[in-house]
């Protein structure tokens, strides 16, 4: 891997960005999802509509926001609405194509935990909590998850189900009356997984360049399944890599300059 002219984190972000279609309305979480969504906007999907839960709709931030409510989201948005309106009219109203989320823990049916590690009452690690994820996981037409892969994160059983994926598999979402399709892809620094069409169990569809099956098995806390026709993720293009690096460089500079100016 070390000989390759890109990092595993870059492949993860680029692979996630590729899943977003031009023109899609995308409800974006902060961090990795926001980076990938903005990369998509700056490459193949210039007309993508980015919605952040703080209220901006159609945000086109020149640099990556550090928080979910940065000023550059409001300044570049088509409109800024209140937080209840975002959730009531736009998300629950069925106007979001893709919910783009991260997580601390995930299981084989792409249910996610962002609440606690350990017991809820006396957790060993208290995580930030749900944010908008339960509603996004329910109502977005589709959900894409992006997170780094490790056996600690990809677990046999979640400590807490914060937001549902495919519950216990099969047609469980339909039976519970959840409006959206749920997770359609999980992108990690090792591979891309998608739910099996029938069982809904996550299946490895693509290995990133240079990644072995063994690496994925080792970094997954359940007996992970691989697609019959396992593919290799196409290598990042020069344009993808340059755009991502330039975006990150610009963001670092902007955030650094801003703080230095106030010293």
């Amino acid at each position, binding site marked *: 891997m070390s000989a390759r002219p890109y990092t595993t984190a870059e492949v993860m972000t680029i692979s996630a960005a590729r899943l977003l279609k031009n023109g899609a309305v995308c409800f974006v979480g902060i961090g990795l999802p926001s980076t990938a969504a903005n990369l998509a906007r700056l490459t193949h999907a210039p007309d993508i509509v980015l919605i952040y839960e703080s209220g901006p709709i159609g945000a086109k931030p020149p640099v990556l926001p550090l928080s*979910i409510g940065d000023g550059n989201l409001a300044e570049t948005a088509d409109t800024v609405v*209140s937080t209840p309106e975002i959730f009531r009219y736009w998300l629950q109203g069925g106007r979001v194509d893709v919910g783009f989320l991260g997580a601390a823990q995930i299981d084989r049916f792409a249910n996610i935990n962002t609440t606690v590690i350990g017991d809820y009452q006396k957790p060993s690690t208290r995580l930030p909590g749900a*944010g908008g994820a339960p509603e996004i996981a329910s109502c977005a037409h589709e959900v894409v998850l992006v997170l780094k892969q490790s056996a600690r994160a990809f677990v046999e059983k979640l400590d807490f189900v914060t937001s549902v994926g495919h519950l216990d598999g099969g047609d469980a979402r339909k039976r519970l009356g959840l409006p959206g399709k749920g997770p359609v892809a999980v992108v990690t620094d090792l591979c891309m997984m998608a739910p099996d069409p029938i069982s809904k169990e996550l299946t490895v569809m693509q290995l990133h360049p240079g990644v072995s099956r063994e690496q994925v098995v080792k970094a997954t806390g359940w007996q992970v399944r691989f697609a019959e026709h396992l593919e290799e993720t196409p290598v990042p293009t020069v344009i993808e890599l340059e755009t991502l690096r330039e975006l990150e460089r610009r963001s670092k500079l902007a955030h650094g300059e801003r*703080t230095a100016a106030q010293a």
Partner: protein
Amino acid sequence: MAEITTLREAVAALVRDGDIVAMEGFTHLIPFAAGQEVIRQQRKQLTLVRMTPDVIYDQLIGAGCARKLVFSWGGNPGVGSLHRLRDAVERDWPVPLEIQEHGHGDLSNAYVAGAAKLPFAVIRAYAGSDLPKHNDKIKFVQCPFTGETLAAVPAINPDVTIIHAQKADRKGNVLLWGILGVQKEAVLAARRAMVTVEEIVDDLKAWPNACILPGWALSAVCCVPGGAFPSYAHGYYERDNRFYQAWDAVSRERDSFRTWIRSHILDTEDFVSFRRVLAESTAAGLPQ
């Protein structure tokens, strides 16, 4: 009718021990100066409500002002954990902290219901989630028209809501813009509401449909320039990301937190002197 007064007087008059207090602000316009005045006046046993508790709630919790937190996402945005919140939840320090945990969709709509003086809010979420198992305030109801099962949460009606805004006029009418979060709803849901503003002007020069909170719907308005620092006020100043990063080190250990809160909040007279002490400790290269 809003009384235009000092921050010290407004907190003394409007925030009482044991109150349900909402200090709202979604990354933008966070009422830091007001929250720190609550610490300075050593209010206790508060139930703190906020969608996104961040550093100001970490300070209130670490200072022992809170007995309960109602929230939907608690973290230091762009940095990581809130160490004081975690210490309170994981190890009961400095006092045990009861938590009541929601998602953004339901908590924001609980304020809407509160502003409308309806008993509860209805949303489509939580089927299959563990949150309702640990929060008995999230229940399920059946739509009387379609039979659909929906989640319901009780309205939030704070005893007092505190927000920061850009401008007020001399009658106490308040104008805010940019990312508005749930501030308007939180103010209208509350029994008492106080607003700190960047400046008080003769004429708000607001456009129709601007977000204006009429002075007659507020209890107090206080002019506190920079009162959202280290968060930002759109059109006035940017977020001080460095403070949020420095907070991680300050808040990580109980001792460093105690020293900081003593020298920066409890031993300072007001927000102006807090800013001066902070500038001195930053220049001296001490942990802020």
